[in-house]
């Protein structure tokens, strides 16, 4: 009898936590919904990928764009965080079936889900971040030329390495890169970085290591320490949460780091030289604005240096002004097309 009771309680505990785990999604979205005074009654739903809103990356930034739109455009926003890949389709459908005007899918992982759901709800508009979908009239894709900002931070790193004036830089001409995974949204940054270094400091060696994880800070820290022991003194991280460990290791070993996606200077202001930023927030805001103002464009929209879709974060005070000027000049050349940056990484 007692044993039976215990088993029932165990089952109840397990069920309870499972339910609590799912319920998590709902409470988070509710907490995030700020009912701004909406004149237009325009409803925007945002579905994150499994990275969640605290990914230090595109999910976080997309949410920032939505928050901005709530404040400035008066739209009503709601967010749902996907717990696993199987919930992409139901999460998108949930918003679409509730009459949301625009549904935002964050991340290339949701490509198949958007392709499946969008045709079922022709009256709802869909935005997918980081994935090129064409040929569906109610879907627009935001693509980022991150190789361009990667190029600029690479050029800056190369110049600093060649000058060798910053305190803490060694005499070896080695730069380190830590990537999350060997996938296009990561390697495009690295490709640009390699070309930028090549431009300003052709003799430099760029050491690239992949962590195969976007959430393992401890591993990121170890990889960074390995690269530092190999002689790297400026580390570019393209690894989400793993990269937080890279910046931390650079800080404790008194070398330099370059942030990614968002402006990461706040993490360690003396260590972070600058950040290669990806304007997922501006892109999200822009597309919401297009939808609100009936200026909808289906197909692919590119965000690059020219329209401030990618760029540089705040620059460390120790970076000399002549370096900044040269980087600015290169940015200008990319904008006017004198320099084209390839998104293909040298393996």
């Amino acid at each position, binding site marked *: 009898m*007692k*044993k039976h*009771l*215990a*088993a029932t*309680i*165990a*089952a109840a*505990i*397990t069920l309870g*936590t*499972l339910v*609590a*785990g799912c319920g*998590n999604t709902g*409470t*988070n979205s509710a*907490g995030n919904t700020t009912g701004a005074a909406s004149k237009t009654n325009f409803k925007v739903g945002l579905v994150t990928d499994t990275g*969640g*809103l*605290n990914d*230090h990356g595109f999910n*976080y930034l997309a*949410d920032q764009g939505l928050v901005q739109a709530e404040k400035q455009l008066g739209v009503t926003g709601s967010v749902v965080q996907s717990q696993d890949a199987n919930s992409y389709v139901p999460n998108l459908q949930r918003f679409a079936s509730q009459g949301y005007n625009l549904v935002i899918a964050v991340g290339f992982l949701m490509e198949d889900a958007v392709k499946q759901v969008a045709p079922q709800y022709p009256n709802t508009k869909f935005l997918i971040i980081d994935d090129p979908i064409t040929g569906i009239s109610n879907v627009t894709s935001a693509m980022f030329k991150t190789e361009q900002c990667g190029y600029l931070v690479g050029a800056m790193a190369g110049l600093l390495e060649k000058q060798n004036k910053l305190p803490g830089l060694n005499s070896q001409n080695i730069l380190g890169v830590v990537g999350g995974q*060997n996938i296009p949204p990561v390697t495009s940054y690295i490709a640009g970085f390699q070309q930028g270094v090549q431009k300003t400091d052709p003799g430099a060696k760029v*050491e690239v*290591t*992949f962590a*195969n*994880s976007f*959430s*393992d*800070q*401890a*591993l990121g*820290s*170890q*990889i960074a*320490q*390995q*690269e530092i*022991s*190999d002689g790297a003194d400026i580390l570019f991280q393209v690894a989400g*949460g793993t990269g*937080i*460990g890279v910046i*931390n290791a650079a800080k*404790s070993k008194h070398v330099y780091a370059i942030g990614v996606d968002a402006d990461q200077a*706040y*993490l*360690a202001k003396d260590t972070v030289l600058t950040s290669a930023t990806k304007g997922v927030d501006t892109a999200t805001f822009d597309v919401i604005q297009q939808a609100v103002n009936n200026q909808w464009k289906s197909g692919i929209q590119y965000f690059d240096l020219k329209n401030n879709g990618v760029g540089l974060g705040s620059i460390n005070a120790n970076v000399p002004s002549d370096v900044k000027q040269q980087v600015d000049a290169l940015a200008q050349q990319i904008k006017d097309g004198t320099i084209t940056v390839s998104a293909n990484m040298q393996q």
Partner: protein
Amino acid sequence: MSILTNPQLWASTLAMAVPLALPAIGGTFSERTGVVNIAMEGIMLMGAFFGVSFAYWTHSAWLGAIGGMLMGGLLSAVFAWAAIRLAADQVVLGMAINIFAAGLTTFLLDTVFGYGGTPPDTPQLPTWSIPGLSHIPFVGAFFTNQSVLVYIMLILVGLSHWFLFHTRLGLRMRAVGENPLAADTAGLNVWRLRYTGVIIGGLLSALGGVYLSLGILNSFDVNMTNGRGYIALAAMIFGKWTPLGSFGASLLFGFATALGIALQGNGISANLLGMLPYVLTILALAGLVGRSKPPAADGIPYTPQR
């Protein structure tokens, strides 16, 4: 071969062994008293999250470490109560604890600190070099610029082994895990000894989590344990349910990870190298250690005879 003489490889090996060895020894304490514990992953997450939280709130990394351990201990006490008092299925329970802790820490991270993550000005535990030892070639890397928890872990390995195998209380705890009826008949309090084992295990596992969030870093991230609690489970079995063995197995896993990092710089595929720790696990379990035998009463709830 220059890779093997790079001191960084050995420093990384030890650094990556800590978050496996602590929960593996924690699991050993629990299972030696007869409670199957697969909840190390969840308890580590609790330790990691509350370690950072308390460190931020109190402005002291040490108080953070203690707070993180206590919260991990608290969760393991709940686990122990359900496993021992209610005689619930320990594997199901352990899984429930893991899922619960993952959900709870994510929820609290978002609600307490917001989506920007834990504050960057959270204090971190110090790193130490041992003056005499750090100058010895090769071995010196073990003792250069390592987190203070690395040294604490080394002490705990020895201490745990001594405690479990050379003290009266250790003997009693093991007796309860092998034959609780005999131990009960001899006048030992089976439940109390099992509570002790599980809660000591919880404190050690939580310290493993604290190492990840406050030893290596000063921040918490969702699921930052990345399955290390489960690898620790393998290390515990691989180490034949002994603290020294668990530590040895953890060193091997740590070495595989460190080697994976070092080899990548030499142009070998990252995906292949990612498998290295697991290939080593299979090879080691299949050939090297021979049969690993758990405590006889491991996982079997016990009802005291009146």
